[in-house]
């Protein structure tokens, strides 16, 4: 399987990710790798089995805060929480932010070679959602609660 890696400026991240979303590409994963800098790779699949080219969008950051892509790809929140917690990458506006409580690991930023030796301090606040996303969830809940799925009854053949 071929792979195409495109390195972009982190300021153009949302714009680039939106482009892939418009093309109906599937986000496969976000991969972080840290040495002197931290490298974030966003892998995409065109969701077409005949297309064997993987597209990878990459940004390099040192200490910058980057935007969450969870508004564009809602399921990115898990990847972003993981990267935030294990690599210490600053990511803002994650739709479901665990504030460092996704993993119960004893060492803070365990995958970041440049991290200071520090153990985790557990906070009471474990999960926070941005106001926008919680409102959305509420609206969706209200809508869907009135639409009860009809039972098919009987058995399938």
């Amino acid at each position, binding site marked *: *399987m071929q*792979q195409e890696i495109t390195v972009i400026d982190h300021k153009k991240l949302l714009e680039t990710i939106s482009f892939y979303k418009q093309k109906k590409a*599937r*986000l*496969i*994963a976000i*991969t*972080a*790798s840290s*040495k002197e800098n931290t490298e974030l*790779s966003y*892998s995409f699949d065109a*969701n077409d*089995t005949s297309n*064997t080219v*993987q597209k*990878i969008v990459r940004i390099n950051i040192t200490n910058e805060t980057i935007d969450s892509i969870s508004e564009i*790809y*809602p*399921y990115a*929140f*898990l990847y972003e929480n993981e990267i935030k917690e294990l690599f210490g990458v600053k990511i803002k506006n994650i739709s*479901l932010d*665990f504030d460092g*409580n*996704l*993993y*119960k*690991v004893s060492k803070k930023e*365990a*995958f970041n070679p440049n991290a200071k030796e520090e153990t985790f301090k557990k906070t009471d606040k*474990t*999960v926070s959602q941005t106001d926008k996303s919680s409102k959305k*969830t509420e609206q969706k*809940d209200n809508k*869907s*609660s009135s639409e009860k*799925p*009809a*039972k*098919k009854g*009987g*058995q*399938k053949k």
Partner: protein
Amino acid sequence: MSRTVIPFGPQHPVLPEPIHLDLVLEDEKVVEAIPRIGYVHRGLELLVQKKDFKQYVFVAERICGICSFMHGMGYCCAIENIMDIKVPERADFLRTLWSELSRMHSHMLWLGLWADAFGFESLFMHSWRLREKILDIFEQTTGGRVIFSVCEIGGVKKDIDAETLKNISSKIDEIKKDALEFSKVFYKDKTVAVRTVDVGILTKEQAFALGAVGPMARGSGLSQDLRSTGYAAYGQVDFEPIFETDGDCYARTAVRIREFFQSADIIKQCIGKMPEGEIRQKVTGKPNGEYFMRLEQPRGEVLYYAKANGTDFLDRVRVRTPTFANIPAMLETLKNSQLADVPLLILTIDPCISCTER
């Protein structure tokens, strides 16, 4: 209506491994579920900086006890792509054969757990009885039943002689015959239908939007199956991705049952087309570069990313397991479900927390 938050897990009878969910309920209806993982995070990805690139195969195989072989294979394929190693054809066929046996055993294990979750214990026992026969084939061909360490960078460590292949072929026929008999219960029994039909519906659009993979995606009508890209020997066997369109628990069960029989057919094809020749390619030098390898495990697509720097020790290995990818889809199916269905809806993704906590 007032809301109640019920903690579900990390210890629960339906969960063999720890995962926690905060279930927000209105009466008996779940309106929201917030996951918490990481109770047994092992940091295996970080171990790549302490084990050399050949030793790490053994670590990769220990990420999961069910799809152990495919973890080892995923890692080996990533390194082989970086080093531009052409694996012998026979090794590719053997890898495909063991991969499909792993899929059969994984699906049969899940079907048993699934039956047990809705209280059908005899069906659970029948499923696991059949699974034992597949484990026997593993033992016969590799010496191991769970982790068998036959995959290595450049090929495989063990060959299977013609007599054993013939023997496997007849055993597969027996297993298929048995499975055909009791799969009718999954398809037609009323008690199974009551607990699975129209339960936990995930539409095709939702499955795509939430990044679902494997039988979770295929049960909702997405025909994504990485085997179609033709890695290992998949390009030389005939098969089509299996999918169902209803998107409920019943559809996901049907996908796994049909894939069980499909895997049996692929194994028979591999045995029929098995080429003669070497089973391993000599590996010289050290890897330098990076590669994103994807393959289809029983639970869905897995991603193996390896980044090497020309030394014995890699800079990074990253594994994105199918369970990790299916968590958002599982949360969606939990919304508006009944509290009594929560254990089934968690099991429906075939969760492997061991994989997730790599």
